[in-house]
């Protein structure tokens, strides 16, 4: 029988251990499992005529995935009950057929079993699938039966998700290392050559007739003391130290009032890498204000709960961090996220103007946000940074009647495309008022 060959190896797989001689036990297991399978088939074959044909099962799987999966799983309860053994549990196969085609009708007819189910599942009515033919329902049942009878199959381990990004940095780093090593080698070679030159010169000078003083100079020993007290050495050290110090002072002065790189710890360890990167949830799904107003808006707890009413375990932090969202939701207490990007009050910025009208991508200013586990301020947010972009960027005039006249006027005077600065993007009062 085809079904036997499907069952036995699976049972064997779970019961045998490769390094132990357990022939007797395994053959006993084989025998017992055969007995079990036969008994099971005998029991179920009386009740119905559900097909075991692979064609019926695969047809049923397609139908199940297209129509049933939203509310049902075979082995677990979702919106509706788990469907395993439904063919044994329900009053009859005909009952299943009529319930699937018209559940409200069966409930209204006063059917006991249907009403019990209806009440058990919070009076949620199952959608009527009136377009299903009897054969379709039988195929779905064939699929459910095949799934029910599958012994917990060993999970096929998929390979880990290939790491995204970060690859291109590695190449240039090894390249730099090679260059550094090469330069070091050249320096060492130069030192050796210089050493040879010095000894050659000494030998040459010794052959000549020199005064005592000159001999002393030629043969003066080179020690640490003579090197460090030489004026050339002191000049080099002072110059290097002065230059480095000057650079550090200038860099330090420039960093005042600039918060680039600020990456504070948030009350919940939310990862944009998972949500925006791996799951590809659109930025605007959570940051709903970005197309409409000044602030991009940080999502309120109900938006988190749209998914996290069900997803309770994260890949990086387990259940602890997600439990904080549930707690905030249940206690009706807002989550106080830490603001990262903060323009001073003297400058006005509006998200909708940039994202909705100009069509600027989030990443243009916020950097590779979809790869960040902890959000950091990517851009400088200085005035020079704003102006730079306003000088370089073409205005997104397509399909916007507001710009038609402006583009016409601009074309009369200039051949280059209209930039933001051409329509007043550098006017002081556009941002400072």
């Amino acid at each position, binding site marked *: 029988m085809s079904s036997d060959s499907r069952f036995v190896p699976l049972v064997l797989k779970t019961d045998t251990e490769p390094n132990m001689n357990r022939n007797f036990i395994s053959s006993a297991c084989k025998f017992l499992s055969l007995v079990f399978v036969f008994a099971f088939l005998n029991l179920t074959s009386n009740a119905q005529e559900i097909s075991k044909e692979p064609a019926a099962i695969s047809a049923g799987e397609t139908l199940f995935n297209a129509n049933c999966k*939203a509310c049902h799983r075979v082995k677990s309860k979702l919106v509706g009950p788990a469907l395993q053994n439904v063919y044994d549990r329900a009053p009859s196969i005909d009952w299943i057929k009529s319930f699937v085609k018209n559940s409200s009708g069966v409930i209204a007819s006063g059917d006991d079993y249907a009403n019990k189910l209806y009440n058990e599942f919070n009076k949620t009515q199952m959608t009527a699938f009136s377009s299903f033919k009897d054969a379709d329902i039988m195929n779905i049942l064939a699929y459910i039966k095949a799934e029910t009878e599958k012994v917990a199959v060993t999970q096929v381990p998929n390979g880990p998700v290939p790491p995204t990004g970060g690859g291109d940095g590695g190449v240039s780093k090894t390249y730099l290392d090679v260059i550094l090593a090469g330069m070091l080698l050249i320096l060492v070679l130069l030192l050796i050559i210089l050493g040879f030159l010095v000894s050659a010169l000494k030998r040459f000078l010794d052959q000549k007739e020199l005064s005592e003083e000159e001999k002393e100079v030629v043969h003066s020993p080179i020690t640490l003391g003579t090197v460090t007290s030489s004026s050339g050495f002191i000049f080099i050290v002072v110059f290097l130290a002065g230059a480095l110090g000057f650079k550090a002072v200038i860099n330090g002065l420039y960093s005042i009032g600039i918060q680039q790189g*600020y990456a*504070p*710890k948030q009350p919940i360890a939310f990862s944009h890498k998972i949500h925006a990167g791996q799951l590809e949830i659109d930025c605007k799904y959570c940051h709903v204000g970005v197309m409409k107003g000044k602030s991009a808006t940080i999502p309120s707890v109900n938006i988190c709960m749209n998914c996290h009413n069900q997803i309770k375990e994260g890949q990086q932090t387990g259940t602890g961090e997600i439990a904080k969202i549930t707690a905030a939701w249940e206690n009706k*207490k807002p989550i106080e996220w830490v603001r990262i990007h903060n323009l001073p009050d003297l400058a006005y910025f509006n998200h909708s103007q940039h994202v909705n009208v100009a069509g600027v991508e989030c990443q243009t200013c916020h950097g590779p946000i979809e790869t960040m586990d902890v959000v950091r301020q990517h851009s400088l947010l200085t005035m020079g940074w704003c102006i730079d972009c306003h000088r370089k960027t073409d205005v997104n005039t397509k399909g916007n009647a507001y710009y038609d006249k402006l583009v016409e006027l601009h074309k009369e005077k200039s051949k280059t495309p209209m930039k933001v600065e051409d329509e007043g993007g550098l006017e002081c009062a556009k941002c400072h008022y």
Partner: protein
Amino acid sequence: MRIVSTLFVAFSAAVVLTSCGAGGDNQGTEYAPNMYHSVAYEPYSQITDEDAGRWLTSIDYPDGHAEFYNSNKFNPYRMNMRESAPHTVARNKHGWLPYRLGKDSLAFAAANVKSPLDSTAAIIADGKVLYETYCDHCHGPKGKGDGKVAAGGIKVEVNGEQKERSIYAGVANLTSDALKGVSEGHIFHVITMGKGLMWSHGSQISPEDRWKIAKYVKTLQK
């Protein structure tokens, strides 16, 4: 010796100044702190500590708070935002009243609530963009319920173990036979109120945008 002392001063200045830069939890030194701590109510920059910025406070505020404090002590959590006053009705720019059918009125809504929009190509194109923003990641690009959040199936490594990524079970296939025939009113009601395992998306998507999405979903179901 003068050189040494000059160098010492320069280096200590450099060390002091490098602590001005931002990074990690350190926000960096602010040039004009009053400008970064808004006195006016600003989103996500509420300061509830009444003594914040005392060191540069030059004005005697009536209730004695310091410069940076910008919260409303009469509101819950000292929030600045309030819910609209009771018994008032907000209308949008088209003059539409809020949608007030209850969650359990799906059948009524499906039969009676009609879309105020015309099926023009522009509106359906808008609907497509909105669908890709708000629906795509669960319901999938073609509405088959196979978006990345719903389908999952990708294994990730957690502490050296292969684990199935958390996924959202029970996402409806919008093109299934049962849902193919639903009205735009039905789709609008479900987006607004949620259905089955889907929660309400009324707070995220404006009524006009919900009608646009409904129009686009109908084209997916053809």
